[in-house]
């Protein structure tokens, strides 16, 4: 565990030095403040359009950070020739993968804290209330979904040749799941065999990232709190996919030549 934490700490320190988060955060803040300055019929209470925009920017920014950061972890170690010395230490390949995953996931969590604090402040500036538990649920499931994305990117970084191709493929998969994931079963029903079974297979196989993504609407439109048992179930569901992707990554990395 100590080795895993040490690797995760290195990833965290690396993220402090990189500019992606600062750029994306400032961009989100600037866009939201500009949009917030628009006068809507002298009504200071109108906020939902701003909440929607802010949450969308948060999701896009967090995906960019998660995918690009994770996709370059292993290839960068290989390029800088630090992978072999690292593995020469009392550190197994599985520990390296888990350390990288934990580091990237923690970085995502820290970024989300900043983003959601800003979102809460923005919403409170007009709504004059602070539905903390709602934000906590949204941020928690968002972080869980990013865990799946990080694990998937990590697996991709071992399978695909370059970080750029891995990032592109991961972005495409995430976008496709978020846009279409919920409707794949409906699409399957309209198809003939074997297309129907194939699409159904994909529907049940993919991690349904659209569940936490669609939760934005509950936050935007002030719906009541989701029952915690469903939140925990969603979290377990996403943790299951994290475990599957990480296990696959460990298997691939174990068989991969590193020199």
């Amino acid at each position, binding site marked *: 565990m100590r080795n895993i934490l040490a690797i995760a700490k290195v990833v965290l320190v690396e993220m402090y030095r990189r500019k992606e988060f600062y750029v994306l955060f400032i961009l989100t803040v600037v866009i939201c403040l500009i949009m917030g300055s*628009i006068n*809507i*019929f*002298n*009504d200071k*209470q*109108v*906020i*939902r*359009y701003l909440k929607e925009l802010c949450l969308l920017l948060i999701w896009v920014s967090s995906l960019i950070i998660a995918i690009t950061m994770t996709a370059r972890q292993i290839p960068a170690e290989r390029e800088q020739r630090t992978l072999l010395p690292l593995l020469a230490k009392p550190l197994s390949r599985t520990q390296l993968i888990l350390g990288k995953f934990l580091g990237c996931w923690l970085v995502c969590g820290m970024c989300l804290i900043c983003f959601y604090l800003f979102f809460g402040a923005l919403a409170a500036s007009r709504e004059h209330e602070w539905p903390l538990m709602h934000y906590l649920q949204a941020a928690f*499931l968002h972080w869980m979904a990013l865990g799946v994305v990080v694990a998937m990117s990590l697996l991709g970084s071992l399978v695909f040749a370059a970080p750029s191709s891995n990032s592109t493929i991961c972005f495409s998969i995430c976008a496709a799941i978020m846009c279409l994931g*919920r*409707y794949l*079963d*409906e*699409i399957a*029903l309209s198809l003939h065999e074997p297309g129907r079974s194939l699409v159904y297979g994909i*529907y*049940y196989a993919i991690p*349904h990232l*659209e*569940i*936490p993504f*669609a*939760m934005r*609407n*509950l936050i*935007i*439109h*002030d*719906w*009541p709190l*989701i*029952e915690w048992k*469903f939140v925990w*179930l*969603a979290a377990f569901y996403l943790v299951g996919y994290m475990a599957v992707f990480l296990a696959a990554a460990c298997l691939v990395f174990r068989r991969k030549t590193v020199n």
Partner: protein
Amino acid sequence: MITGRTYGLLLAAFFVLCFGLAADLQPQFQAIENARKQSDNFFILLLGDSSRIFANNFFTKADAYYHSGYYPTIFDNNEAFRTAHMAEDTGAVASHNEGEETSFMGPPRDWLDAFGRHFIPNRHTHLDEGGPTDDLSKSSQVAEILPWLELSSKLDPEDIRTYLVMAYWLRNSLNKVSEAERVLREGLRNNPGNPQLLYELGRIDNENYNNPAQARTIWEAALRTWEGEEPNIPLADRLKLSNENFDNRFIYEQLETHLAQLEEKAGNNAAAIADLQQAELASPKPEDIQSQIDELRQKMNKP
């Protein structure tokens, strides 16, 4: 054999043709250029005619906000949402909605679908009725639809339903009469003389500013433009009872009914009856108007 002189003459003919064509086309191009320069609408300059597609999209977005996010996508059954409910509730547009609006999702298709429904808006509500909390004190939240409607009107300034919906909610739910008037005047700047916009403007003068004289002038102007829109079609044809003809009948009936009310208030019962008789031609329930006419006649006959 073609001589050099022939070539010269042909060249001269081409030159004259080109000059003539340029002289003919240049003013037309100049007019287009000037129209573009004069247009102060950034979105239309940027997107051209495609801005209407975006405008419609934002209009639908506003209706999704009216339902607090509970709204069908292209994959769902949207028979009950063909006409935006926020527009339908104003009473100013024809409804094409069928089916059950509360259950467009249908029963869950599988366990994943059933589970996913806990994380999305899953109940039919309207913002003016309190939204998801059902708290009527929060009915002013209907203002949340306004940013999208404003954007929609900027993208398609010729779509009058956007102005009508904005003005209705501003006036009725948010008590922002001057803003509603500003919206209608902007609509009239983009759609000069539109009878529906004039009718709403007249209502503001009559009901909010208590200025019946001004309202009468506006409604009479609206009637004139309504009649002038299709001068060659007989009145009976324009007021034929059909769903496609709803806008024509609705606006004519409303204008005549409201003018009749003004006449009745002013004590001109004969003029009121004449207006009601015109309204009767357009009404889907002429018997109701006939009973009003009978009441007025009784009033007139009393010593």
